[in-house]
């Protein structure tokens, strides 16, 4: 053996590493989202698959174009671009033109992530930045909900619309459960909400599959269970208060939990580690804040759905929450007897 082997000189302790890597964690998220994605495609037809793919393509391509040529491979392999595109795609309505979905992916990665300095530096959830951009830019397309067509292979005309030329939204439109609740005061059967047989965004309808995926991620220790738990508990609690005050005017807590994008947002978007607090106490504050905002926007705001804005607003508060919730340092504040 060589006495001064350079390999012996460098790596600092600890020399053991747990097997989980960032790329593996991203892979787990993609795996957990697969059932809900497939359910969305099953319910909304081939067009939904095209939209999700367009979102992913926009995100991954932007990541590739704006990465230094030497790092491209590594940047794509960390899987974060893929997850952003997938989450964006799942939060889009099933009749959205493909070019809009693609543009959303570009904005998600470009303005949501790269402009901040890349992975780990962004303040806001990239997928939601892309979605907020689309909602602000194409309000009509983003709030047109097509009903199930029944024919899996029939792709609606609006999906294939040419960029920037006025698309026609003539398909069979149907309001979302939250929309009917807000504007018509009508509830939807709970079971339909749980399995996802309603209208809504591609990936948000099947509550059951989203929850199963979430449980998988918690078991794999890929996400902090405190965030979804605190969001869902606080939404249930705040809705219950309103429901008890006026059962006719406000939705019941179970409806609130399973309708709209709450499960998708609470389990997969609010838990984005980059944009959520790092301390356990901070996670609870963050979650309760999201829950409160969701109920406030849904009930008193102009939109039927408020998950996106609730998460984005709490993302902005994350650095502040982190600053004030550091755990007590071992031995600090203990008096010497």
């Amino acid at each position, binding site marked *: 053996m060589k006495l001064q082997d350079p390999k012996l000189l460098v790596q600092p*302790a600890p020399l053991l590493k747990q097997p989980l890597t*960032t790329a593996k964690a991203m892979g787990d998220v993609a795996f957990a989202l697969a059932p809900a994605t497939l359910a969305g495609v099953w319910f909304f037809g081939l067009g939904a698959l095209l939209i999700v793919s367009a979102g992913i393509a926009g995100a991954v391509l932007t990541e590739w174009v704006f990465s230094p040529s030497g790092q491209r491979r590594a940047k794509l392999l960390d899987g974060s671009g893929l997850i952003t595109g997938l989450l964006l795609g799942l939060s889009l309505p099933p009749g959205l033109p493909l070019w809009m979905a693609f543009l959303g992916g570009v904005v998600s990665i470009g303005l949501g992530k790269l402009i901040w300095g890349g*992975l780990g530096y962004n303040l806001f959830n990239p997928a939601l930045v892309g979605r907020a951009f689309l909602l602000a830019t194409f309000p009509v397309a983003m709030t047109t909900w097509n009903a199930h067509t029944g024919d899996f292979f029939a792709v609606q005309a609006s999906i294939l619309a040419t960029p920037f030329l006025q698309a026609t939204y003539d398909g069979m439109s149907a309001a979302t459960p939250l929309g009917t609740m807000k504007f018509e005061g009508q509830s939807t059967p709970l079971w339909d909400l749980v399995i996802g047989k309603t209208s809504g965004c591609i990936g948000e309808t099947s509550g059951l599959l989203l929850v199963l995926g979430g449980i998988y991620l918690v078991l794999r220790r890929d996400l902090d269970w405190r965030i979804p738990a605190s969001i869902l508990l606080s939404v249930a609690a705040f809705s219950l208060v309103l429901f008890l005050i006026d059962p006719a005017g406000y939705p019941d807590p179970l409806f609130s939990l399973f309708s709209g994008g709450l499960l998708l947002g609470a389990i997969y978007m609010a838990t984005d580690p980059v944009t959520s607090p790092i301390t356990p106490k901070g996670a609870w504050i963050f979650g309760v804040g999201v829950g409160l905002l969701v109920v406030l926007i849904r009930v008193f705001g102009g939109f039927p759905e408020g998950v996106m804005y609730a998460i984005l607003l709490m993302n902005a508060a994350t650095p502040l929450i982190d600053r004030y919730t550091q755990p007590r340092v071992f*031995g600090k504040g*203990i008096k010497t007897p």
Partner: protein
Amino acid sequence: MRLFKIRGGVHPEDRKLLSAAEPIADLPLPPLLHIPLQQHIGAPATPAVRRGEQVAKGQLLAPNQGQLSAPVHAPTSGRIVGIGSFPAHHASGLNVRTISLQPDGEDRWSNAIEGIADPFALAPAEIAARVSAAGIVGMGGATFPSAVKLNLRERYRLHTLVINGAECEPYLTCDDRLMREQAAAVVDGVRIMAHALGVTRILIGIENNKPDAQAAMEQAARLDDRIRVVHLPTRYPMGSEKHLVQTLIGRETPARGLTADVGVVVHNPATAFAVHEALRYGRPLVSRVMTVSGGAIRRPGNLRVPLGTPLQYLIDHCGGFEVEPARLISGGPMMGQPLPSTRVPAVKGSNGLLALTVEESKWRATMPCIRCAGCVRACPCGLLPLEMATHARTGDLERVADLGLMDCIGCGSCAYVCPSHIPLVQYFNYAKGELAARGRIKQKRIETKRLAEQRAQRMAAIQRAKREAMAQRKRAAAAQKSQATNTD
């Protein structure tokens, strides 16, 4: 017994099976021993032997220099062949003052070695003095002179002695083997230390992955009802002194304080064994048990190693390398130090020599931090490692210190869990070193200023004295002159 929960911690694969079944074997004497004069925290020992001198085993080679220091003894009989500098058992590989001894093969103990029949009849201070004279230091790796800790009863109200048999570092089995094979001697050493400390309660904490050691110690501890062997959950870093005390008695040691602040002193089983040897037989600390392990070692095992043995000799005794090792470490894989070469000698604090293969040490390229907070959850000290590392990287060391850098115990739990493989501990060590260096520079500046001011004052005083003396001479001369004129 009810245990208290500590926050954080990790569960690395312990990989102790590689060497746990191997009984402690005596390592044959190497052809040459290199005994560093600094094998402990504090001032180095000063050599008291000359080149060419014949020494006996256990003979004092270099007495300690002051209270916070430890003497060094001859690990075997032989001839001193040199007192010079030799690469240290340290990552830096820098040279330190070292005595080289050529064994004569007789391994003959010095005649001056004499034990005590009943150490419990001695005064506590006398026990501490003997422990100090035997050169015993904390053998868990910290190498703090043990006698200083045994004298804590003078300044603190102590009630409990904790024996840290957690051995939470993966791979290491030296304490495990020692407790299994020498349980009675370890317990005897523990009782002697308890006598010196004047405590009423003794807790021996052993992790649950060492059931044989737990059983052996329980058996040996029966003769003293103050002793309780506590089964600890297997969790890293259970062996961190303050966290162990927290687990056992539920009291948190004040930040930057000593466990003595809460009335507890912690010692290692190997230290207890050394105390037993020193008091009962008068034998100073001249050898220790080391684990030689890792996937690259052909025959991993536990060896009783004379201090000063070159590590290459240990490796050769264990059959050499099966494959070329990727990492060579002194200590455990979580907190151990990389070794600069295999020439360096075994010292009092060496508990393990690990040669890890590429697969075992799993080096991966660093990726951006995704703020997953795994490190925050793993940190047993309640710190935010990712924030500290970010600030250390940008050079904002004051902020790192504000975030609690000095409360970091360097256990490496954060870097272990990091999915992006960020070398967090490396950042903290850099920040600690840099802050210490800045402190020294500041201290130096203050000191220089003080000295310069003193010099200016001294100079001014000399000038003044000169002037006064001159004036006095002048006056005297004038007076003489006038007197002379008067008499004329």
